[in-house]
């Protein structure tokens, strides 16, 4: 490894890491890792360490990690915390991205378990559709969702 790269890594490490006697202080950007992610990572660490979160400024949070095991390596613990942050950031991003798919799957599972629910929901929407069609002033409110559900039920 070149000297320049080594120096760069050390500099970077100093910026995100600060160690003391029995603690390591990590710097986290809340715009990169939202608070929910930081709390979740902290929660996952509760059995390994004591966690304290403080705000330095709007773009910097400090997470203090106090290992419960006095022999624990502070560097490893700090890096593990960053990994946990990434893990939860990925989890929340996937959850958001797959929310619609998850909803459809849940609905399908629910309706297959109790088909009467689907019939009730469909007939209610058909009634609303007929009502809105019979009233010309409300025609504009007919949504595509109603039409598609109506078409599906007719099949």
């Amino acid at each position, binding site marked *: 490894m070149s000297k320049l790269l080594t120096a760069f890594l050390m500099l970077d490490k100093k910026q995100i890491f600060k160690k*003391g*006697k*029995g603690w390591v*202080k990590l710097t986290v950007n809340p715009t990169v890792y939202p*608070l929910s992610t930081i*709390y*979740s990572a*902290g*929660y996952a660490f*509760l059995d390994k360490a*004591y*966690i*304290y*979160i*403080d*705000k330095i400024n709007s773009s910097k*949070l400090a997470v*203090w990690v*106090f290992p419960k095991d006095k022999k624990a390596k502070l560097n490893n613990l700090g890096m593990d915390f960053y990994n946990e942050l990434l893990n939860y950031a990925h989890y929340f991003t996937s959850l958001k991205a797959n929310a619609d798919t998850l909803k459809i799957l849940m609905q399908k599972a629910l309706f297959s378990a109790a088909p009467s629910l689907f019939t009730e929901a469909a007939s209610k929407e058909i009634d609303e559709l007929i009502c809105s069609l019979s009233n010309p002033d409300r025609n504009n409110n007919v949504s595509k969702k109603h039409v598609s559900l109506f078409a599906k039920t007719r099949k």
Partner: protein
Amino acid sequence: MFPKNMYPFLQKHGNSFFIRLHRELYKKELLARARKENPDLVGAVLPRGNYYLVDLKTTEKSEYLVFLNYLIGLNQEI
């Protein structure tokens, strides 16, 4: 009682030490619930600027750290 700079979250106020918690990270409701659940441990909660100063009725060093973890756990529940 505590070595200087050992715990960054401790702040001396009067004759006792208080835990310093940022308002945006440790909400009022969270502290209120912690106080309700542990009336023997959690004393006064004083708002000071961007922070709340929490008086813990203990002199045990470890209890301060346990309390911090308790708040992280409680925060996930709320």
